[in-house]
């Protein structure tokens, strides 16, 4: 079996599972946020049970519309706080957490080998730690809160084997954009995507999170990476107990629906052009695209490694007149680290606006929305029509280095070229 099958077999009390089989799996952790939580609470109350099945295994994170941008949002947040109090659930409120997918592993809620259900599509991020994690909706989250179980179809698996070394300013974000560009938005529907190979082994946990995070953009049920020493190092002091990683290796004879190879050595920075995540081009082929907004942040690219990279590009430079640059550290922990490292000063000196840890402009529901005819280059994960505001706005997705370089020049720019010209 592969790692995903092993985790799901254990969770459903079976020795072996096969793709296509439907199992009833025990859930180790469920998460809801402020956009999906209120509907889940409403549905939970309709079920008629009094208590959450296990209050140690459910977490609430407020991250999408925080601090509340309207009275309506404030009311929803209030409902969630009350539910967390009544049920004695862990809640990460304004100023205490940040983006759910950063907070969950930081606070030790993501354990390798466990089954995690999150009422947010980017829950697949936790596969970076060797957990089986996938997104569900509010009603389903309510059912998990009540029963601790969920039906799952064992997915077919795709192995993505990555080799080679990244050139300067080419990042895991460029790799995942390139993978989605080749596999397409429906290339992995219902499947498990397992990232392997020497490049993955040498990659930071942050980079692995970026890969698994965007697996859902090709339709995948989960992205996953076998845990190793890098995983252990990140999680030590965060998780209550560390499982044995040996049980979380894909067998030599594990079955994959297909294996695809990627080599990053000659890879250029990549850009996903409007209005589909799989409309991916090397930055040199994007052409002359002026931008009004540049966003660095989100669950895809708001980590300290991302901010360091952006700061490296922006240090001593100014954001071009006419461009609004917005930087959002993914969590309070990242914010604090960026502050201590002097990164926030680099951003503010460059004329970028640094905002408090939350989802921000990514979902077009809170701050940093776009007007008709405007263009944003963003480190986030979706560029669908209307995603960040007006249906007549355009969103280009790129790495923190590319977005930072574009903020300086006012048009989509290869960070390697900007450096060479300096």
């Amino acid at each position, binding site marked *: 079996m592969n790692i995903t099958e092993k985790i799901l077999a254990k969770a459903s009390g079976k020795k072996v599972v096969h793709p296509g089989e*439907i199992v009833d799996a025990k859930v180790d952790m469920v998460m809801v946020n402020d956009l999906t939580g209120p509907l889940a609470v409403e549905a939970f109350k309709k079920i008629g049970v009094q208590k959450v099945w296990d209050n140690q295994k459910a977490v609430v994170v407020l991250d*999408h519309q925080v601090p509340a941008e309207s009275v309506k*949002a404030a009311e929803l947040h209030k409902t969630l706080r009350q539910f967390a109090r009544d049920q004695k659930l862990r809640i990460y409120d304004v100023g205490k957490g940040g983006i759910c997918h950063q907070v969950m592993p930081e606070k030790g809620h993501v354990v390798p080998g466990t089954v995690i259900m999150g009422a947010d*599509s980017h829950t697949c991020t936790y596969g970076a730690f060797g957990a089986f994690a996938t997104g569900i909706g509010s009603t389903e989250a309510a059912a998990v809160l009540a029963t601790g179980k969920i039906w799952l179809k064992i997915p077919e698996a795709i192995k993505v084997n990555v080799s080679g070394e990244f050139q300067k300013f080419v990042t895991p974000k460029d790799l995942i954009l390139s993978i989605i560009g080749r596999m397409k*938005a*429906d290339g992995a529907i219902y499947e498990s995507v397992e990232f392997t190979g020497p490049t993955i082994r040498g990659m930071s946990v942050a980079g692995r999170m970026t890969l698994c995070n965007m697996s859902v953009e090709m339709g995948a049920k989960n992205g996953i990476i076998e845990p190793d020493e890098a995983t252990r190092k990140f999680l030590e002091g965060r998780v209550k107990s560390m499982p044995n990683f040996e049980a979380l290796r894909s067998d030599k004879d594990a079955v994959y629906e297909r294996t695809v190879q990627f080599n990053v050595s000659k890879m250029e920075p990549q850009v996903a052009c409007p209005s589909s995540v799989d409309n991916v081009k090397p930055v040199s082929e994007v052409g002359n695209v002026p931008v009004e907004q540049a966003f660095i942040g989100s669950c895809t690219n708001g980590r300290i490694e991302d901010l360091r990279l952006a700061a490296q590009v922006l240090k001593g430079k100014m954001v071009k007149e006419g461009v609004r640059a917005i930087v959002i550290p993914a969590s309070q922990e990242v914010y604090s680290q960026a502050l201590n490292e002097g990164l926030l000063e680099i951003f503010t000196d460059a004329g970028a606006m640094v905002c408090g840890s939350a989802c921000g402009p990514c979902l077009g*529901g809170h701050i940093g929305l776009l007007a008709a005819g405007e263009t944003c280059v963003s480190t986030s994960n979706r560029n669908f029509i209307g995603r960040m505001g007006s249906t007549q706005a355009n969103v280009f997705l790129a790495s923190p280095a590319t977005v930072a370089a574009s903020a300086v020049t006012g048009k989509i720019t290869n960070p390697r070229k900007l450096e060479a010209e300096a």
Partner: protein
Amino acid sequence: MSTKIRGKAIKFGNNVDTDVILPGRYMILVDPYELAKHALEGLDPAFPEKAKEGVIVVGGRNFGCGSSREQAPLALKYAGVKCVLAESFARIFFRNAINIGLPAIQCKGISDAVETGDDLAVDFEAGEVKNFSNGKKFQLEKLPPFIQEILADGGLIENLRRRMNKE
């Protein structure tokens, strides 16, 4: 849920995402009828008007890709969509639709054989959809019995209540 549905088709292409089905900025709306006013706003702002008499949405591949927002299928359901037929669905949208009692059924070949305005009849028991406008017939993907039960009960919550009461 009745086992037969008849209605006019409204057809969309591949990769219809949840941001065009229901933009993120409307997710603070609690009343499903308010959500419905913005259903598919990203592709056709007139959709709620067209759907209110009851329609069948036909999609291409990967219908409902993107966010986990259950407000997307809710907006469709309350706008008047009786059923969604597509070449394939994004998994979270599929589960969400079933869980709120909106039939979402895979139907290979459907998008090439249906045009907006065609008169469709879906027979869940027979597992068949007929296009009266051109006489073509298609097989629906067979859903596992427990999913059929969730739909028959009107959604996951109702299904769960019934099952828990039995235990």
